[in-house]
């Protein structure tokens, strides 16, 4: 004798689980296929990669060796390009943090006259699609004589990253109690001391999130890098990846290997700072 209640309940559970799996499995496949395909190419010899195998007959790390030893025409400047990406991303992160923290402190804590207007202007820039600003930006960088110079890309990316940074940091600093500043002023602290000793330590989580945001934005940027830099030794990795397409007989297995190496740092950073990113950024991204 089965207890109808119990068996019915567990059957319902199985059905729910099955329905969830029916969603979960396609989601997993959809997410992983392009990434798996990239990984597959990275560990496949050319013949295996081009014959549509789902797993290579002879998995190999040879492609990585070619990339790291720069043994291909397309990879001559791999280390220089990797270094360019790294330096530019770091510079954008640091500059954005300095500019945006100062601006947010000024608008939110010091209530500088016109601060509201500046914030609105920044927000406006944030909403202008980056590809639209790229066209006049390209010409402007030419006028400034910065084309093909790393500073052009750094400054362009700071321009794009700052508005969102200011906005998120301003929201975060509005949440700090005013009494903190008042108490510090009572104790005779100067504005700079408040900034350094009270404001910065309390803002740390948001600063980490924004720094990461700016670094990743610059590391991942393709369009601006491709417009502003052209010399093979000055370009960043994504531009070099795009340049592989210039030839008809591109070594796709090497392209995917380089792409895989290029994708690892941001993925690692993202997962390391996920706690900050999700809390700091999604809360700021859209106010519900």
């Amino acid at each position: 004798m089965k207890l109808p209640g119990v068996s019915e309940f567990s059957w319902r559970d199985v059905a729910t689980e099955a329905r969830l799996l029916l969603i979960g499995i396609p989601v997993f496949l959809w997410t992983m296929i392009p990434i798996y395909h990239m990984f597959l190419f990275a560990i496949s010899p050319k013949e295996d990669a081009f014959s549509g195998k789902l797993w290579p007959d002879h998995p190999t790390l040879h492609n990585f060796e070619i990339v790291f030893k720069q043994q291909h025409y397309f990879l001559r400047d791999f280390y220089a390009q990797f270094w360019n990406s790294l330096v530019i991303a770091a510079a954008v992160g640091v500059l954005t943090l300095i500019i945006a923290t100062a601006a947010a402190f000024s608008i939110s804590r010091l209530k500088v006259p016109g601060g509201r207007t500046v914030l609105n202007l920044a927000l406006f820039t944030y909403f202008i699609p980056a590809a639209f600003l790229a066209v006049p930006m390209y010409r402007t960088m030419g006028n400034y004589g910065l084309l093909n110079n790393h500073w052009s890309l750094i400054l362009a990316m700071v321009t794009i990253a700052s508005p969102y940074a200011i906005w998120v940091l301003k929201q975060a600093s509005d949440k700090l109690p005013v009494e903190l500043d008042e108490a510090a002023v009572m104790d005779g602290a100067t504005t700079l001391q408040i900034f350094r000793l009270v404001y910065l330590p309390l803002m740390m989580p948001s600063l980490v999130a924004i720094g990461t945001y700016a670094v990743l934005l610059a590391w991942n940027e393709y369009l601006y890098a491709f417009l502003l830099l052209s010399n093979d030794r000055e370009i960043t990795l994504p531009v070099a990846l795009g340049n592989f397409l210039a030839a008809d007989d591109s070594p796709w297995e090497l392209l995917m290997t380089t792409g895989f190496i290029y994708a690892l740092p941001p993925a690692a950073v993202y997962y390391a700072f996920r706690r900050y990113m999700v809390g700091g950024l999604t809360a700021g991204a859209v106010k519900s």
Partner: protein
Amino acid sequence: MAITLSGDQAIPAPPLSSRLTPAQVWGIVLLAPYLLVFLAFVVYPVCYGLWLARAPSNYVALYNDPIFARAAVNTLIFLVIGINIKMLIALFLSGFFAQQRTWIKWLSVIFILPWAVPSIPTILSVRFMFNPEWGVINHLIFSFTGDDGPNWLNDPTVALTMAIGVHIWKSLPFWTLILITGRLAIPHDLFEAAEVDGASWWQKFRFITWPSMQTLYITCTLLSMIWTLGDFNSVYLLTGGGPADLTHVLATLGIRYLRLDQLSLAMASIVCAMPFVLPLVYFMMKRLSR
């Protein structure tokens, strides 16, 4: 108060620095770096660009360029169809990921990957998957049916659909994540009460989930539309605008004109998009600066 005011007015206006408190002086100093960046890299380029695009002949040239008309239509399809499909899937998946299961927690960690990795290598990976001769898709089609697969990216409709697919692949995790936060903010006892009343799945969505999420959902949809206007990578790296320049969107078209050294046309094509962009931007700013 009135006395001090009239007293102040009697004295000639003091120089700027003495009228400001030290804190305000610091405020201006600290705001100056951003203002400089803004003036040099937003105001100047935009004004210069508008000045370049001032001649009406540019707009006549655009009007006569079939590629521009095609790009405008493609952009509309991308925004109206692509974004709405994406947001509906995100809304659906936010419900899925809000389920309390260990394996769903793990799946959500994996699900974030497309957003966490740079788009260039993954878009190129998709591009090769659909390569007619060597791509894995056509290899599979051949081994199952014995026929050669289609030349995917050579058909403008298929190519644009795939570009939209790549865009969705890349940005779906971000919007799903935001909608999950919205969903988790709904008080749980509402659902419990509905459960007791025997509400169906649809009724719970219709009367509890949707009313509490619709503002967030609409904000997200509009924001995603604005940003997608600037999505250069999905189209450029997958189709390059081809075949025969039939899959351009406004973002890639502007850059195409730029590469052809037709800067004023590039700017004019962007100016043409402004009547659609600016109301959206205005609406978003109203919404976010409440």
